[in-house]
């Protein structure tokens, strides 16, 4: 090889001396023929690389990036934004006045108000110098001021602009741990907590740790929130689906888990973890305790890490169901650190506080060896820390005003108002969907979504095929163009093959719900008339 190279290099020296002068007229690179043979050889080697392709193009981009999908902000939203621009530039250009975004769990973008107490504390922590002013007491509630002082005392130098400990500020983790204990009746260790910019980065961290290659599989519910499929794709792993049963209110059957696990194993997949979203997204079901115990036993028996996405824990709308954290369930079964590896995710984005834009959240990790915990810490440290304001908010969410606090009454009223409104909207939309021909919709026991199933007529499916679109996307696009309502096609969440769904949030303002219902009903009737012939 060396002889070949130096021979070529010598030939190149005579060839390229003219080329180099045209390329590098203003550079200080010395012409080839003044270089030593070794240097010339090196120069030659550097020209072996083909220059025909740009560095970042669709052809050279990481294929894992190409593979991953995230429908919540996918194609349908892009179309909606174009239509919105049309309406702005050219009012009356469409048969509707406004775009109604029902695609994303983003409550405050649809006029849901933030919790006053939380915002008071955050404002004071952002600008602590006003705490010393007497006028501040006239603008903020006394317990918000007190809480801000408490929090700032836990931050060295009251420096909310400083990077914190990579797991999050210790004092805030103490508060969150206490909150977890108050919720579950079992202790939580602040050292088990990693505060993150929303729950999503914590999910990515776990996928990064668990997935070594495409032979590593992660069991995910179908339908699922597409963060999981996207994250698994980005980290080069394999999603192992387990199907929730629509007939039984999106029930989770252990037999299905076992079946899918065994199938994956026989295909050479090493299944590492089980994702459970409770309450469910997009499906909204709240797991029963007995079911949860079965899941815990399953993970313990099969040696799987249980990844419990519990971000909707404060969104339960039905009196016959209650949220129980998997941490509580495992501890109440007598299982501890040695028995099961559990990661629980929580966020400030949902619940009744809906603070999506703040990017606050945490994961609680239990049942991992010190060596693994060290690695998790190391991963967290590369990004230094999550945003401080989000950390503070997470501690407020897990430790809100109590009975007797000055702000308790107004806090409770705000909380109740949001939750009861969500429950009402869920019911109204669910009833409306169930009244449509060929549509069935399970109730939203929790979370923020409805996931109706549409029995699409064959003609529609054919038309979709011709349009090279999934049938549910076909429906969703027609719905958007006719009504301005944006929903996410069920394919974005995956579903039992041959079934079609869409996900619609329950978040539009109450006064808009009747209009949504009537427009949807009218569109659906026309659609069925057209495609049922």
């Amino acid at each position, binding site marked *: 090889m060396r002889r070949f190279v130096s021979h070529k290099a010598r030939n190149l020296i005579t060839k390229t001396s003219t080329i180099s002068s045209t390329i590098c007229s*203003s550079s200080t690179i010395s012409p080839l023929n003044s270089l030593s043979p070794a240097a010339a050889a090196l120069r030659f080697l550097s020209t072996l690389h083909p220059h025909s392709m740009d560095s970042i193009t669709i052809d050279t981009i990481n294929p894992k990036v190409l593979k991953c999908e995230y429908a919540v902000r996918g194609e349908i939203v892009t179309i909606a934004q174009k239509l919105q621009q049309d309406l702005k530039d050219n009012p009356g250009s469409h048969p509707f006045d406004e775009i109604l975004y029902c695609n994303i769990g983003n409550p405050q973008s649809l006029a849901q108000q933030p919790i006053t107490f939380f915002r008071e504390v955050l404002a004071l922590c952002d600008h602590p110098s006003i705490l010393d002013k007497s006028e501040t007491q*006239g603008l903020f509630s006394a317990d918000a001021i007190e809480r801000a002082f408490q929090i700032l005392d836990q931050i060295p130098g009251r420096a909310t602009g400083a990077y914190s400990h990579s797991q999050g500020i210790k004092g805030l983790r103490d508060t969150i741990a206490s909150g977890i204990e108050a919720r579950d009746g079992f202790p939580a260790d602040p050292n088990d907590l990693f505060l993150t910019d929303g729950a999503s980065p914590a999910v990515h961290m776990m996928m990064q740790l668990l997935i070594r290659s495409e032979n590593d599989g992660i069991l995910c519910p179908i339908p699922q929130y597409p963060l999981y499929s996207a994250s698994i794709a980005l980290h080069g792993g394999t999603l192992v689906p387990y199907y929730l049963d629509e007939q039984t209110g999106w029930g989770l059957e252990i037999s299905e888990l076992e079946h899918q696990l065994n199938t994956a194993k026989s295909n050479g997949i090493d299944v590492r973890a089980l994702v459970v979203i409770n309450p469910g997204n997009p499906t909204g079901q709240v797991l029963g305790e007995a079911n949860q115990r079965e899941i815990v036993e399953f993970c313990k028996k099969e040696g799987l890490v249980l990844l419990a996405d519990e971000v909707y824990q404060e969104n339960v709308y039905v009196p016959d169901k209650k949220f129980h954290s998997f941490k509580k369930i495992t501890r109440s079964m007598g299982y501890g650190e040695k028995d099961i590896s559990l990661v629980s995710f929580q966020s400030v984005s949902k619940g009744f506080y809906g603070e999506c834009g703040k990017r606050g959240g945490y994961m609680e990790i239990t049942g991992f060896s010190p060596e693994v915990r060290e690695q998790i810490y190391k991963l967290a440290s590369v990004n230094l820390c999550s945003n401080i304001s989000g950390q503070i908010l997470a501690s407020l969410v897990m430790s809100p005003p109590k009975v007797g606090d000055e702000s308790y009454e107004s806090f409770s009223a705000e909380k109740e108002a949001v939750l009861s409104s969500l429950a009402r909207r869920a019911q109204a939309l669910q009833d409306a969907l169930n009244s449509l021909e060929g549509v069935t919709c399970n109730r939203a026991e929790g979370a923020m979504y409805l996931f109706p199933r549409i029995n699409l007529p064959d003609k529609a499916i054919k038309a979709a095929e011709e349009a090279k679109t999934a049938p549910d996307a076909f429906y969703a696009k027609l719905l958007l163009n006719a009504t301005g309502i944006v929903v996410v096609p069920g394919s974005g969440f995956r579903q039992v093959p041959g079934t079609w769904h869409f996900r619609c949030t329950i978040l539009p303002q109450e006064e808009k719900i009747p209009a949504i219902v009537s427009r949807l009903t009218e569109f659906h009737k026309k659609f069925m008339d057209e495609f049922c012939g």
Partner: protein
Amino acid sequence: MSKPLDYENLNENVKKCQYAVRGELYLRASELQKEGKKIIFTNVGNPHALGQKPLTFPRQVIALCQAPFLLDDPNVGLIFPADAIARAKQFLAMTSGGLGAYSDSRGIPGVRKEVAEFIERRDGYPSDPELIFLTDGASKGVMQILNSVIRGPSDGILVPVPQYPLYSASIQLLGGSLVPYFLEETANWGLDINDLRQSVAQARFKGITVRAMVIINPGNPTGQCLSVANLKQIIQFCHQENLVLLGDEVYQQNIYQDERPFISARKVLLDMGPPISKELQLVSFHTVSKGYWGECGQRGGYFEMTNIPPKAVEEIYKVASISLSPNVPGQIFMGLMVNPPKPGDISYDQYVRESKGILESLRRRAHMMTDGFNSCRNVVCNFTEGAMYSFPQIRLPPRAIEAANKLGKAPDVLYCLRLLEATGISTVPGSGFGQKEGFLGLQKCYGSSNNAQLLEKSDMHPSKFLKSPSNIGFWICGAGGGGGGGDGGI
């Protein structure tokens, strides 16, 4: 029963990745702090943790955005100036629901427009807000771009040595290869294009496809500001070799000498005109964490793409959308940083006074630290032209090296640990940043306000440990703060 996630069955890339800035030294310092020892954290650029105060105006604006009900209160003017109130209203109007709503996954369009206008004012060329993505700190942006570029272990990224270890850590996590190019300490940490060519050729010889080149300007940990000539060479080199240029420019506000002001890679590129200005692919990174703002905890940053094809931009957008949006308060900090109070605004004088105060202090400390280090025996320290760090070289005697080897530690780690135990000063060993073979260093930042005391305390005489010097050097880098200052440790 063996645990499902054991050290053995962890992703190898995670195990291999290192991030010394919060590694062994930092953890030891945190332990000592818990035991009651006073520690000065100089391991990371974290100015507020060492007493630098936040600028007043942005904090006023963000507080008003957090609690918009204040805006309706007749008494709000008693503690907030009118221009902060106006600006808060402007920002809130740009959002779809205040601070609590996910924004566009690229960031609030109005803020991206402000960033574009800032870039245009700075460089003299228009910038497209559609090609600017706001991120939760510049680090996230770096990871996103590297994630797009790295396909596998045969994709190499050129990284300066010494470097800020985010790059080595990210490349390792993403399963790529780091291709080092060495900065020359004796030439003021300058870059020799021939060295660069050599690095690339060697990598290709090993079967690595070199995809991108990282420049950190001003440098971290080295502090040097690249000259226009150097930037031109780099740009031409990347163009010839078909590399994406990744310009980490987070320290562009931290310049402590007048000979080499900051010039952005984009400006140099566009000055060079077509075809190169239309072909060379560049991604530029900035942040609210450094400069004189030092708002590390907000996690505000952006990257700007130049000459990246639309389909690739779409894919990068897609990945950004999975995380929904960067944190909104951080975005507002960015908007305020690129579009601060102007002459005539009520808060302008205060803003200028506070900013100047910080910059002048940083400049003073840059000199003090450099002079201080250079006055120590066996220590040589290049002047910190920019950024926030000193990276002195200490010539460590053979006996110290021997002692270190016996303990199974790198000599600079041993030095830093001893320094920590003796003085409470927490630094980062140069091995955490990469260094030329045979040279060892450590990093020390100067965010602390009391540097004279710091230097006396540090008393970095190798003679404390040993007798005769040898030709092994230490690099000491200091960052302006520590992991939450007194919050260090678990």
